[in-house]
């Protein structure tokens, strides 16, 4: 059974967490793991960064708290799920490993 890694990202771009998220995500994908990422609060601002969105192209599943994104006038990019807290709840419940960047 495929192991899965869940990542929660709530910090804004200037917090400097994106590089760690990309590194962890790419490493996990290269190891054949399922990678699920949820962004909320200030973390939705990473949707404006092509480096973050490339993770979806590489196979990561990215879900967004649409409420937070809409509050910040951020539009839905292709390849991400425009979701809500239910997506995070199921990710936490189902993932083998879970990391939070808050």
């Amino acid at each position: 059974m495929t192991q899965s890694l869940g990542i929660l990202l709530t910090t804004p771009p200037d917090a400097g967490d994106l590089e760690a998220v990309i590194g962890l995500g790419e490493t996990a994908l290269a190891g054949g793991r399922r990678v699920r990422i949820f962004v909320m609060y200030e973390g939705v601002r990473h949707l404006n960064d092509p480096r973050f969105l490339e993770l979806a192209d590489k196979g990561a599943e990215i879900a967004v708290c649409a409420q937070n994104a809409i509050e910040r006038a951020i539009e839905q990019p292709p390849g991400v799920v425009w979701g809500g807290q239910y997506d995070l709840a199921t990710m936490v419940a189902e993932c083998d490993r879970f990391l939070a960047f808050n």
Partner: protein
Amino acid sequence: MKNVAVVIRRAPDGERNTEALRMSVGLTLADNRVNVVFLEEGVRTLTPDKSSAALVRKHLETLRTLGHRLVADGQALESQAAGTEFDVEALNEPEIHSLLEACDTVISW
């Protein structure tokens, strides 16, 4: 079922701590047992100003009604949020360590 702790340890700053509480309520939508743990300056979330009081009350009452656990560091609670209106369980440091150690996932805000 996952046993999840959401640790709120920073002083209220904008929407940060109310978002942590909204997330805590959201976690109950799946098979998670949620423990909200107020530590250090995070206990000040329990004495909210007028702008956030309704949100804090709504989230804490929802979690309590659903049978999830709300705890705080007793010492921090006494020194920084003694007048709180909310029903939270005061624990000492070893009890908090045991709670966190028993959780499958810890999400620290």
